[in-house]
């Protein structure tokens, strides 16, 4: 049995805990339409601009509307988009389990604070992820600066905090800074990995490894 030193998990919100901004925006501007590869790449670039603070929420919304060929009244998408940010199925159960095990939980995100907070409150996720544990990348100029700031302020502690993210470039950046990291694919795989970290009972312990 692993003796676990981790007592704090930091989730990258977008795509791990809640719907990513690009997907939410597309759901608001083009409901029922499937974006092609070029559009998905463009939405991804818009998400990155939002996350590193080079695009304002208004510019992000306008960009998404332009991609869909939709001209929305000013402010309309700004209101509709947060409603499209929903919990990733299976994650509320994971958050509940981790909270029961007295693990501290935090959230980092590339979306504007007001969008995320409203989604957390509406969906009930705020129960496990209070507002003072939510950190917004754009406030620090993007992801690596955010992580550096959290490390400097002691809000992420190497050896104690586990960075959970669906993007391998961010998990590698966390590891390079000495922060343990887990790649998120879906809640079932993540639960398996939490077992390997010794954070939850390990259902696969009797299975052969290697």
């Amino acid at each position, binding site marked *: 049995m692993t003796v676990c030193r981790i007592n704090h998990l930091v989730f990258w919100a977008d795509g791990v805990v809640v719907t990513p901004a690009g997907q939410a925006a597309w759901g608001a501007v083009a409901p029922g339409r499937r974006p092609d*590869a*070029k559009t*998905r*790449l463009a939405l*991804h*670039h818009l998400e990155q601009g939002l996350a590193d603070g080079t695009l304002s929420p208004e510019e992000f919304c306008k960009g998404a509307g332009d991609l869909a060929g939709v001209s929305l009244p000013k402010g309309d998408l700004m209101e509709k988009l947060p409603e499209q940010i929903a919990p990733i199925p299976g994650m509320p159960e994971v958050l509940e389990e981790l909270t029961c095990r007295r693990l501290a939980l935090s959230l980092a995100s590339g979306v504007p604070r007001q969008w995320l907070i409203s989604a957390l409150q509406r969906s009930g996720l705020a129960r496990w992820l209070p507002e003072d544990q939510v950190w917004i990348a754009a406030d620090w100029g993007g992801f690596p600066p955010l992580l550096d700031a959290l490390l400097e302020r002691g809000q992420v502690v190497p050896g104690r905090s586990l960075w959970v993210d669906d*993007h*391998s*470039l961010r*998990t*590698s950046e*966390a*590891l*390079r800074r000495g922060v343990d*990291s*887990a*790649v998120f*694919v*879906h809640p079932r*795989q993540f639960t*398996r*990995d939490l077992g390997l970290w010794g954070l939850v009972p390990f259902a*696969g312990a009797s*299975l*052969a*490894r*290697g």
Partner: protein
Amino acid sequence: MIHTETLTLISDGRFHAFNVTEEVRAAVRTAGIRAGSALVFYRHTTGAVMIVEHEAGMLLDLEEVLEQITPVARDYKHHLRGVDFNGAAHVRTALMNVSVTVPVLDGDLAVGTYQDIVVLDMDPEPRPRTVIVQVMGE
């Protein structure tokens, strides 16, 4: 029966890894076969397909090992054309695999508990990447 699907991955390049196990599993279900195989093919020259434990530390270890063998900053002859500067990614791809084949048993992928199908994009540029999944069997 042969069933083919195309996956489009929105990649940031550099060393962006994608776990496509569930997508391949879904393709097997769609094909409806009980026994056969699933081929996963990366349709580019600057990436690879691997069966590994998809774990953050392993990915960084792999990146560091590849950097020792094929440093990104090396003077690659491939760069002499001045077209692109992704020599490291091309050499790495030549050393790795661009496809894997996984057996299908009882209508599911016969992978081990910790075996994930991971696509790795090593190109320096972000762009959509294409993966072909072809399921064959009966």
